[in-house]
């Protein structure tokens, strides 16, 4: 290790050499600055649709308030892609739940429904909703995190111990049209909006 001399600051004057070095350093920084932005090459941001989209059930039909059973859940793909491979993506699977009667599941409007990302906030297993009496909650098969179907908040297991926003499941906003068909409103993929899949959401 060579011992470095402290920079000479005699009377606030910088020597010509030091000034040159400074310029060279500044030039180097400027030359490579644009490449910082190139970091955007790496992430793959989720596409945000501007329009509402259908809740497509596994049988291919659109979910309807008049036919979907109370206290029942299905796995729904969103955003649905033309590419069947992408539709197998766990990050696109959502649990579409009609709440049990005691939580208001019998109403025929959007408040009876919930749609949460199925990716467990702990270590990304896929949890699902269990309608049995005494359960009526989302349960993760891996380490037993449990989710409140009303809010998507983890109330037991490792996911519940995580700091916000990682203790609340991302959720999608729903609306119902005149025929009772259920639609997904355009999402805002941020922790304070609809949440980030696999990461979480701030409870409003």
């Amino acid at each position, binding site marked *: 290790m060579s011992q470095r001399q402290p920079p000479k600051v005699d009377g606030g004057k910088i020597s010509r050499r030091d000034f040159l070095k400074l310029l060279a350093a500044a030039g180097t920084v400027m030359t490579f600055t644009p490449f910082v932005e190139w970091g955007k090459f790496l*992430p793959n941001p*989720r596409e945000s649709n501007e329009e509402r989209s259908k809740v497509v059930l596994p049988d291919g039909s659109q979910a309807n308030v008049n036919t979907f059973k109370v206290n029942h859940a299905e796995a729904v793909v969103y955003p649905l892609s033309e590419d069947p*491979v992408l539709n197998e*993506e*766990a990050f696109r*699977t959502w649990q579409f739940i009609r709440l049990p009667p005691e939580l208001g599941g019998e109403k025929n409007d959007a408040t009876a429904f919930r749609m949460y990302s199925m990716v467990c906030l702990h270590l990304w*297993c896929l949890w699902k909703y269990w309608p049995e009496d005494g359960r009526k909650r989302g349960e993760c098969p891996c380490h037993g995190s449990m989710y409140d179907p009303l809010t998507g908040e983890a109330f037991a297991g490792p996911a519940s111990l*995580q700091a916000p926003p990682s203790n609340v499941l991302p959720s999608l906003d729903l609306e119902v049209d005149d025929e009772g068909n259920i639609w997904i409103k355009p999402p805002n993929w941020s922790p304070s909006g609809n949440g980030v899949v696999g990461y979480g959401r701030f409870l409003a």
Partner: protein
Amino acid sequence: MGVSSLSRDNSLVRLFKWIYAGFDRTIFMGLKFTIPTKFVSPLGFLGMLTFVVFIILGITGAFLMLWYEPILDRAWDSVEKINDTIPYGFHMRNIHYHASNAMVMLAILHMYYQFFSGRYKIRNEMLWVTGVLLGVLTILEAFTGYDIIFSERAELAISIAASLTNSIPILGPDMMNAFFGSGFHDFVLRFYAFHVFFLPIVLLGLMVVHFPRFLVFDVPMVMAVAGAIMLTGGVFPIDLGLKFDPNVPPGITVPEWYLTGLYAFLRSAFDKFTTGVAWPGLFIFTLLIMPFIDKYKKFSWKDRPIISALGITSIAQIIVTTYWGFYIDPDRTKSLLERLMIDPIFLYTVMVLLVPLSFGFTYLMIKIAKNAEANAKKQKPSEKNPIQLPAKWLYILFVALIGFQVYLNIAAYYAVLDGMKNYSLFLIGILMLVFAGMFHLYRYGRGLSKSNVEIVTTNKRKFIFPSIGGSKRKSLEDRSTSMDPSKIGPTEDNPLLSSTEKKDIPVPEIGTHKGGKSSPMYSKDTSPTDTRNADIDLPENSVSKTKINKQSQTSNLDQNVRSFPYDKLNDGQKRDDAFVETTRDGDKSTPVR
């Protein structure tokens, strides 16, 4: 090119020599490869073995790339196809898999050997630091590898990795987006890119910095490692796991053995960042700064009690947490969470208790070792007579082994025909081991036939390397000219002696060439100012040059020098090692010729 054709070389040999001489102008000049002519403990070249396994991985991996498809729904199926239908796909996959385990294992052993032998002191900090990075990247490489099969277990591993990345404060989420993309489809593709390109390239780059210029390539040991990998593949063929299906909850899976230690911490359900990122980070950081906090002047683990105790403690912790990570309560009536949870208080208490235990144990070991050393000094070293194998038996054994190889070849072929792929892999593994034995026999026989040229004595600890390096040795003497070799009483443990007499070591030779010193090709000296080897000097803080001079007057060396790990000199100096071994074994005055 300075290659004069010798009548006894045929044209093929001349071609090889011409090519070899051509390296004179390339970067390889700086490297010195030595092939030991006698058995040498593999501890000293574990790094080389790691590298060889890395090459095996590169080759088998390249072949796997021909069939593997890094696509979400096809990854697992393509691996299944490789495993079940592609001819020899089973072999490739199993070699690749078991070699990955071997590489991680060898890298860890290599690190601990460097650690306990204190080699990082001999101006090897650079090698140590790059080594730690290599170790970390090796584990990452293996990790990305087993993830792209995309079985249930792989999926779990990926999600653990991603959520750990995510848990890093501030930068975490962005890093996760950058490295993992969004969703499993991206993961498979990206992990594939990392696994086959980014990480290996970085590994190779680091290896360039990491390798000392003097390397040992021990053919039998290399073949034995390769054979062991295949043999293990034959006995414990790797399964495919279950294909990951996002709608089927995965069963309980445990990661690969080199990650279960980490997994134990994760299962304590403590904060993710602390357990999964901060603890391992701290461990790696401690390793990184080891050479800078190790202020002992000596090298042997016996003389560095605190550092050795640290090492033993780390090993104990690794073993305990690794085991703990594997252990899952078999009681199926309990809930999953209960079975998986590790009580953090229990875990951390055990870990803390282990520390004094390990320190105590190390202290004891050092005591015992010192005693043994003292006892050994009192007794005269007994002359060991190695087994002498008469030439006739050598040939018979050789022929028998070749016969066995023929048998193994046929058997392996028929095993494949009969669909017994794992059995054939097993047999090929044995074949490799037989080759390892044969090579050893060969060099043994070769040693017998030219004993007065190369092999110094019959003591089995002595060996000389015919170096394939191109130049004569330069020695310490060039720099410390005031040192008069004649004044040095040849002592045991005297490295200086070896340094001064290096020039007596026969000029390297290879293969069929029998002339020893006289080959024009090898005696072509590099310029006298060549200092390539001149820095193969003793560690600065322990033996300064002035000290050397002083010490050279008396043969009574300072303890520092005495404990100098000659055979572990970084810059390889394997030939020196050979020499040192000679002097050390009490064969005081026989110079190596």
